[in-house]
C-alpha cells in the first residue's frame, strides 16, 4: 500500500479532517482485502477445476456403474453452471467445509487442525533463530561497514538466498544425524515417544512441559533444533540484509553526528538512538519473513518427515487430492494476506509519520 505523502507538502487546513482521512484509509484497506480475498477464492476455485482427474471417479472408483456415476455427478453439483458452482464453493468455504480428504478419509478441516500446530511451532522457532541472529548481524554489518565482518555477513546471506533448503536439510541430516549423531533424526520425537503426551496446544514442546514429561521435552528439542536452525538460517539471510540497509540509512542522518558530537558512547548512539528508529520497518520484515518460512516449511517438512502442514500438502499433491490441495493453498493465501495486513497496521500505529 502506497504511503500518503501529501501531509508533508499540503498545509493542514486544506486537508480533510483527521477522522475523515482515517475512515477513508480504513475503507481503502478493507475493500482491498475483500477484493483480494475474493480473487483468492476465484483462483483456488479455478485451480480445483483445472484438474485432469475426474473428481467423480476419484470418489467412486472406475468400477462403478453409470447410475452411481450420474448420482455422484449431480451430488457434487457438476451439472450446474459454473457461477452456481462457484457460489456453492464460496458458501462451503464460509462454513469451513472443504470436503473429505481422500487419503486420510477425514474432513480436510479436521486434518488441517491436526497438522497445522506442528508447522507453526517449527516456523516460530525458525523466526526466533532468524531474528536473534539476523538483527544483530545486520546492525553490526552496517556499523562496521566494508570490514571483514560486513563481507562475512554478505556472503552468509548470499548462501542463504541461493542454497536449496531441501539440500541443506539433507546434508544436515547426513552430517549431524548420520555421521555425528548430535541431533535427533526425522520426525518431531523418537518413534517410541509418539502419542504419549496429549495434544492440548498442538505444540509438542509446550504439551510435554504441561504433562511434566521432561524426557520427551528434551527429545523434542533435539528433533526441532536442526529444521529450526535451517529455517532460521533462511530467515536470517533476509532479516540481516534488510536490517543492514535500514541501519545504514539511519547512520547517515545528522542526528547521529549530533549524538556523537555530544559525546555519547558508541554503543549508546547505535542502540538507543539509531536502532529504535528501525524497529517499525523491522517488524514488517519479520512479518514477511514469517510468510517466507511457511513456504520453506513445505520443503523442510518433507526432508525431516515433520508431520505438519507442508508434508500434508505434499502428500495431497502427489496423489492429486484436490480437496486438500485447494484448502491448503487457500489457507496459505489467507495467512499471507493477514501477515501483510498486520504489518501494514503495525506501521500505521507505530510510525508517527503516517498519522
Amino acid at each position, binding site marked *: 500500500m502506497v504511503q500518503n505523502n501529501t501531509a508533508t507538502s499540503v498545509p493542514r487546513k486544506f486537508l480533510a479532517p483527521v477522522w475523515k482521512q482515517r475512515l477513508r484509509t480504513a475503507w481503502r484497506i478493507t475493500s482491498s482485502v475483500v477484493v483480494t480475498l475474493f*480473487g483468492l477464492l476465484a483462483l483456488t476455485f479455478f*485451480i*480445483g477445476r483445472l484438474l485432469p482427474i475426474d473428481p467423480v471417479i476419484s470418489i467412486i472408483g472406475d468400477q462403478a456403474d453409470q447410475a452411481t456415476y450420474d448420482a455422484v455427478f449431480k451430488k457434487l453439483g457438476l451439472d450446474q453452471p459454473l457461477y452456481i458452482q462457484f457460489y456453492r464453493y464460496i458458501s462451503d468455504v464460509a462454513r469451513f467445509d472443504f470436503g473429505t480428504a481422500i487419503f486420510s478419509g477425514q474432513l480436510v478441516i479436521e486434518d488441517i487442525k491436526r497438522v497445522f500446530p506442528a508447522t507453526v511451532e517449527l516456523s516460530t522457532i525458525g523466526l526466533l533463530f532468524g531474528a536473534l541472529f539476523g538483527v544483530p548481524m545486520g546492525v553490526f554489518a552496517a556499523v562496521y561497514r566494508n570490514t571483514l565482518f560486513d563481507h562475512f555477513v554478505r556472503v552468509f546471506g*548470499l548462501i542463504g538466498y541461493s542454497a536449496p533448503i531441501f539440500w541443506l536439510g539433507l546434508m544436515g541430516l547426513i552430517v549431524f544425524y548420520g555421521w555425528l549423531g548430535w541431533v535427533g533424526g526425522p520426525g518431531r520425537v523418537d518413534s517410541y515417544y509418539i502419542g504419549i503426551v496429549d495434544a492440548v496446544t498442538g505444540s509438542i514442546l509446550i504439551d510435554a512441559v504441561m504433562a511434566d514429561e521432561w524426557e520427551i521435552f528434551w527429545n523434542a528439542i533435539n528433533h526441532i533444533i536442526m529444521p529450526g536452525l535451517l529455517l532460521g538460517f533462511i530467515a536470517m539471510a533476509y532479516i540481516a540484509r534488510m536490517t543492514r540497509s535500514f541501519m545504514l540509512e539511519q547512520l547517515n542522518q545528522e542526528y547521529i553526528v549530533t549524538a556523537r558530537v555530544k559525546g555519547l558512547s558508541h554503543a549508546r548512539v547505535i542502540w538507543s538512538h539509531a536502532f529504535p528508529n528501525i524497529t517499525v520497518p523491522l517488524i514488517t520484515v519479520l512479518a514477511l519473513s514469517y510468510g517466507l518460512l511457511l*513456504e520453506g516449511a513445505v*520443503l523442510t517438512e518433507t526432508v525431516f518427515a515433520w508431520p505438519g502442514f507442508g508434508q500434508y500438502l505434499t502428500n495431497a499433491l502427489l496423489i492429486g487430492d484436490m480437496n486438500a490441495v*485447494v484448502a491448503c*493453498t487457500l489457507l*496459505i493465501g489467507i495467512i499471507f494476506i493477514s501477515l501483510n495486513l498486520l504489518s501494514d497496521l503495525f506501521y500505521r500505529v507505530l510510525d508517527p509519520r503516517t498519522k
Partner: protein
Amino acid sequence: MKGKKTADERSSYKDSWRAWLRAEIAYSPTQARMQRLYFGWLRFIENPMAVIGLAIIVFICLVALFASLIVPGSPTAQELEIRLTSPSAEHWFGMDELGRDVYTRIVHGSRITLLIVLLVAIIAAPVGLAVGTVAGYFGGWIDTILMRTTDVFLSFPGLVLALAFVAALGPGIENAIIAVSLTAWPPIARLARAETLTIRNSDYISAVRIQGASNWRIIFKHISPMCIPSVVVRITLNMAGIILTAAGLGFLGLGAQPPSPEWGAMLSSGRIYMFESWWIAAMPGTAILIASLGFNLFGDGLRDVLDPRDE
C-alpha cells in the same frame, strides 16, 4: 552532426575502439548506445562479486552447450555392477543407485536447468510486460482489475502457487515450466506498470497520439520498448528464485520425472541411499547452489550498475 567530425578524429577512432567508446561527444545513436554499455560494463567489472557471478553463468552455459563433448557417455547409461560406488578417478562424483555416473548426469542436467530458466523468462516477461503496460496506460477500471489480479497471485508464496498449479495440471517438466511462469509474471507486471505511469504523460507520447497512433500502437511500439531494460534486469534477478522453485518441484516429484537428469529430481532419488552414499544427494545440490549463486551475484551487480542509489 557527421560533418563536424574532422578527418583527424575519424582516423584516431579507427585506431582505437577505446577512444571511440570514450569520446566526450557521441556522433551517432549507435555510438551513444555503445558508450552507455561500455561505461556500464566498466562499473560492472569494478564489482568482483558480480564478475564471479557472470563467470559462473558463462561456465554453466558452456557446460550445457558442450555437454556431450565433456562427457561422452549417456546420462541414463547403467553399469549395475558398480552401483553406489563412491567418487573415484574414473567416476568423479560417484555412481548412483542405478549405476549411472553422477558427473555425467549433472553435466547433462545443466541443459535442463538453463532450459527451464530461459523458457520461464520467455513466457513470464512478455506476459508481465503486457499486463503492466496495459494497466498503466489505460488506468481506471482496467488498471484496477489487472492489478487486483496481480495482487492475488502475489499473495501466495511462489512455491505454493506453483505446487497447486502442477497438482492441477499434472506432474512433468512442461507443466512445471508453465506453473513457475504463472508465479513469475506478477512482479514484472507491477514493475512495468510503474514504468508506464512515468512514461504515459511524457511529450513524445502526446506527439505520437496527435499523429493519430492507436492506443495499442502506443503501448506496444512506444511504451513497451522503454520498459524492456528494467524488465530484463528484474527477470535476471528472479532467475535464482526460478532455479530454486523448479528444483524444489523436481525434488517433490512434481517437476521433471525420472530418469531425466534434472538436479532436483536427482536429489530426491538419492534420498533413500543418502546415509550410505552421500554423494548422490550432495553433488546435484551443490550444482543447484552454484547455479543460483551465480544468478544472484550477477543480478546484484547488474542492479548496482543500473540503479546506483546505494552508493
